[in-house]
């Protein structure tokens, strides 16, 4: 069983939903990023999503755009992102790691080599934002052969006729983009989620994570009540960004403040008892 499937199975046994926390690789530098990554599981992250920096992140709002810029300035690239995962795996062989990014840096690395190297580094799943199901034949077979889950985005614009096509070939979990918009901007209402999630649930047995616009412990709690997991990204990066000096450098309290924020979100998620 993959780490992702195992983690969702154990959380289901506990009767609670998952907190998926996000960090951008090498934001604002390699060692801070590794410290945050290593601290996240103990602070309450159940799965971790690592953003792969790209110059042109077309689905991301200003917060993640700037995080990517900081990371690239610090020297981030795909090799170094995979090295970050390898370093994390030295001390943690259970927490699932999902890479989220855009296609071009992967193409540049070489799709086959990327899938092999990512699996060896200890990556469990891939979210490639600009690789819709229509184009995914260039990656799915290679990812699957290396035991990597392909996690698909489902959006409010994805209608029920299209849904099976989007889910075909996906594994791990389904990432429900709760708003029509970019990351870190608006937030879906509980009514929106209550209407949308059952339709996705009807089409798949995979766990469903809700992301885009999940910012507070209360929103994370609402997300795990409506679905199986809450993804928090921009809000955590805002906390990180708030600790940096004017040149974008980490300060002594940067890691602690981000992990404190993770703890608060985890309290929200763990306090939300799932309706049976």
């Amino acid at each position, binding site marked *: 069983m993959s780490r992702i499937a195992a983690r969702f199975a154990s959380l289901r046994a506990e009767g609670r939903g998952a907190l998926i926390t996000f960090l951008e690789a090498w934001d604002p530098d390699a060692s801070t990023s590794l410290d945050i990554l290593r601290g996240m599981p103990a602070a309450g992250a159940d799965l971790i999503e690592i953003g792969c920096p790209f*110059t042109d992140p077309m689905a991301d709002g200003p917060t993640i755009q700037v995080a990517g810029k900081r990371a690239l300035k610090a020297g981030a690239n795909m090799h170094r992102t995979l090295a970050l995962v390898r370093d994390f795996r030295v001390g943690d062989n259970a927490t699932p790691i999902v890479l989220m990014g855009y296609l071009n840096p992967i193409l540049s690395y070489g799709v086959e080599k990327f899938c092999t190297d990512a699996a060896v580094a200890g990556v469990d799943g891939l979210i490639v934002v*600009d690789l819709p199901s*229509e*184009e995914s034949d260039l990656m799915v077979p290679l990812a699957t052969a290396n035991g990597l889950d392909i996690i698909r985005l489902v959006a409010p*614009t994805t209608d029920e006729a*299209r849904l099976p096509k989007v889910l075909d070939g996906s594994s791990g979990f389904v990432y429900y*983009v709760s708003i*029509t*918009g970019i990351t870190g901007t608006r937030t879906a209402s509980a009514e929106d989620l209550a209407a949308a999630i059952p339709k996705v649930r009807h089409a798949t047995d995979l766990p469903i994570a809700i992301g885009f616009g999940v910012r507070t412990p209360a929103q994370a709690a609402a997300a795990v009540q409506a679905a199986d997991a809450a993804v928090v990204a921009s809000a955590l990066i805002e906390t990180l960004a708030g600790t940096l000096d004017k040149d974008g450098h980490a300060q002594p309290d940067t890691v602690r403040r981000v992990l404190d924020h993770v703890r608060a979100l985890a309290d929200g998620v763990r306090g939300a008892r799932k309706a049976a």
Partner: protein
Amino acid sequence: MDTPAPMASTGANSLRTGPDSRGKFGGFGGRFVAETLMPLILEVEQAYATAKADPAFQPELDYYLKHYVGRPSPLWFAERLTKVLGGAKVYFKRDELNHTGAHKINSCIGQILLARRMGKRRIIAETGAGQHGVATATVCALFGLPCTVYMGATDVARQAPNVFRMKLLGAEVKSVTSGASTLKDAMNEALRDWVANVTDTYYLIGTVAGPHPYPMMVRDFQSVIGDEAKLQLHEAEGRLPDVAIAAIGGGSNAMGLFHPFLDDPSVRLIGVEAAGHGLDTHQHAASLSRGRPGVLHGNRTYLLQDEDGQIEEAHSISAGLDYPGIGPEHSWLHEIGRVEYVAATDDEALDAFQLCTRTEGIIPALEPAHALAHVKKLAPTMAADKIILMNLCGRGDKDVATVAERLGVKL
């Protein structure tokens, strides 16, 4: 929707049948967008197919092209220039005489008619030099639709007259400071806007790039350039040109000129990229000459990128050529060798700009000045009975300040 041009072939070996059903020209093109946009892209594709099949659509388009844009644009024998260059006869396809001063309006008319059919109530666009922004703002004023144009902050600064023109036309111009603040970032912002406003908004893309069906659709609307030129040259000379040549940024004016000639093997097709300070510097916009294939803005094509797949900044004196990618059909035509792609530097374009102005009394935009820079090199090597057809795709009023600055003249 394609009206048959004289001597056009559409046989089994035609190069004019692409893209395939997945929007691919060979290995290029496609639909690399986030799932949120995918249903919209499919909706545009469906609506365009429906419009093409509707016998009322082409006459409606023709009406606006004739009475509003002023088509057909003239074909001009540049006689003095020909004498000065001392070789092949040079003809200009004068798309700079279109309403709004460039070829961009051809596709704007087509797309806004489509947007209206789709019931969209708001238009967004990206612009580099501002010509596409002005053309989009113009058709939005004509049809009474609100318009938001995204423009890189760098371009806002160097194309001030076009920014004001857009505002006069009632458009909102959003200065983009994300990324590198140029055309590629304006396109990112427009895509972000579209994702956030999926129900009422139509994204009116200015070039033959973006996800399928845009490269095909913009090409179809721009092919009026080549279709007309082919007929006009047939009337003037009774034959095809020996060379057809156009500048390339994203590649819409070139695609519009080339497409009707793709199946005429006697016609050499030459696209001129912007070499900026030189192809061996890092300051150019020559995606085909110096880039390699990758994925950006919804399609697989040649891109300027570093070894990690990060997109690099383009540079050109011409804001309209300052784009690190190129339309996917050009990438395909490059790989199969049907079109030759060369480059002209900033300085060569400036020289050609001045030559055209003084010999023909036509102030060209800096974009077609790149095409002319290559004509300058090529024409003298060709016999006097040969014919070069060049797309003069825009007028240079917008560039006067840039040229003055480069020539050390204070206005």
